[in-house]
């Protein structure tokens, strides 16, 4: 093995092996059309092919694989939510992430470094205690920790009481992790395509045909494709695509901005978030600090970066980690977050027959990728939503049965 590597290293040319072959010709019909080739879309295709033997599937992507919010999120994985439905769902996702690298035979660079959420007020401590109890009851590792434990977990954190918002306590979530977000989409796409699924990039869905309440075809910039079932997995454009099928959604789309500093030596192990100062931060394995915060103050379909948000994030993280005042920023970017009224996703059936929704992923989409792919694939294969995603159906808003996770976001919005 070491000699093989040495031999490869000394070669003049590096014969790269293609990960997978993108499809070329768009057929006239597919049993299943998935709109959007992000982690979710490719994940659904992967599990459809792997568990259900359904391979006459096309993933249609208007840009390139993983080019949307899959590439723009801050790659945080956690399950310390507040509701039973939310915790159960994300818990299964975190479990699935653990074995993805082995399953793909492709390294998604999963790092189990834990997540620490900071309380700067009595009200926050009360809500953390509540979350810790719910989490432990459902088998998720969360506990309320005191200032001394916080010092030990994150020695570089500013623990002075002489600041605007002194840190009073924390919610320690040992199951928290990060992974390479692009690799998740690549792994799923490779696994799906090797089983016969077709990935069509630069193929934009421009309209959706519905006949007698049932979806029958999609019209793309490369022609019309008839289909038995359509799944939309287009975070950031959920309302726009759903409207093509005549469906209105309870979504407002806001940009969420993040930024990254120059690399430092490893000094911050867990992911740290503070809902009070509207910021969260972790150090990547390359040494850069990734800093994110709440969504922008008003809806927008644009991924521009603003000075306002940069100042807000910079002042927030400097309060937590004063040494970052010397840091240079390398990049700042935005993703479009489809925010729902209850901060939970919309998965399952829609008012249009055979048209399934994978939408409303706000700021919580990446961490749900594996479980959403698996359960949505089951819905496609059987026509009925699995119990774990049933509570997240669109119909819940008509019954006033929201799943309130507004208090469990990493940075309040």
């Amino acid at each position, binding site marked *: 093995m070491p000699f093989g590597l040495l031999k490869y290293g000394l070669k003049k040319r590096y014969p790269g092996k293609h990960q997978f072959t993108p499809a070329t010709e768009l057929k006239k019909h597919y049993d299943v059309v998935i709109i959007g080739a992000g982690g979710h879309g490719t994940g659904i295709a992967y599990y459809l092919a792997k568990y259900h033997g359904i391979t006459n599937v096309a993933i249609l992507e208007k840009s390139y694989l993983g080019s949307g919010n899959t590439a723009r999120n801050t790659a945080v994985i956690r399950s310390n939510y507040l509701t039973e439905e939310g915790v159960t769902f994300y818990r299964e996702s975190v479990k699935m992430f653990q074995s993805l690298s082995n399953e793909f035979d492709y390294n998604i660079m999963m790092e189990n470094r834990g997540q620490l959420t900071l309380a700067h007020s009595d009200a926050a401590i009360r809500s953390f205690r509540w979350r810790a109890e719910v989490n432990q009851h459902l088998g998720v590792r969360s506990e309320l920790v005191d200032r001394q434990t916080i010092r030990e977990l994150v020695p570089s954190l500013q623990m002075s009481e002489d600041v605007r918002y002194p840190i009073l306590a924390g919610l320690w979530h040992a199951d928290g992790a990060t992974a390479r977000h692009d690799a998740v989409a690549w792994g799923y796409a490779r696994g799906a395509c090797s089983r016969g699924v077709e990935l069509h990039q630069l193929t934009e869905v421009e309209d959706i045909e519905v006949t007698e309440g049932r979806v029958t075809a999609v019209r793309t910039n490369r022609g019309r494709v008839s289909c038995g079932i359509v799944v939309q997995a287009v975070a950031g454009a959920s*309302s726009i695509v759903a409207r093509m099928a005549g469906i209105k959604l309870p979504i*407002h789309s806001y940009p969420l901005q993040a930024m990254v500093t120059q690399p430092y030596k490893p000094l911050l192990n867990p992911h740290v978030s503070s809902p009070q100062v509207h910021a969260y931060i972790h150090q990547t394995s390359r040494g850069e600090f990734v800093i994110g915060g709440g969504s922008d*103050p008003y809806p927008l379909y644009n991924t521009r970066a603003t000075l*306002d948000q940069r100042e807000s994030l910079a002042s927030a993280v400097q309060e937590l980690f004063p040494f970052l005042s010397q840091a240079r920023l390398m990049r700042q970017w935005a993703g479009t977050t489809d925010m729902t009224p209850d901060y939970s996703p919309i998965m399952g059936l829609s008012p249009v027959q055979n048209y399934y929704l994978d939408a409303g992923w706000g700021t919580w989409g990446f961490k749900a990728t594996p479980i959403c792919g698996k359960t949505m694939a089951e819905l496609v294969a059987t026509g009925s939503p699995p119990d774990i995603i049933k509570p997240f159906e669109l119909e819940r808003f*008509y019954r006033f049965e929201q799943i309130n996770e507004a208090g469990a976001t990493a940075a309040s919005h």
Partner: protein
Amino acid sequence: MKILNCPLNGPRNISEFTYGGEFHSMPDPDSSTAREWAEHVFFHDNNAGVVIEWWCHTPSSYWFLAERNTITDELLRTFPASEAAGGMVQGDDQ
């Protein structure tokens, strides 16, 4: 900092304002069904393009309407709500 032209207070930094949601009329509470109310409360057009929406100047609690392009992030026009009541507003979805 973006400038928003408040019909009451003139041009001010956008940080002084709060976004208040899409402009559309309320269904009649007496005759509408629970389903219609749910749609009114939770569902949105969420259009990409020029939209009309509510904004509030936070320090003075003054509510008004703005026409904004949700793709280019341009504020095109602001006007008092009384103009909308006179039927001058396009884009009402009800």
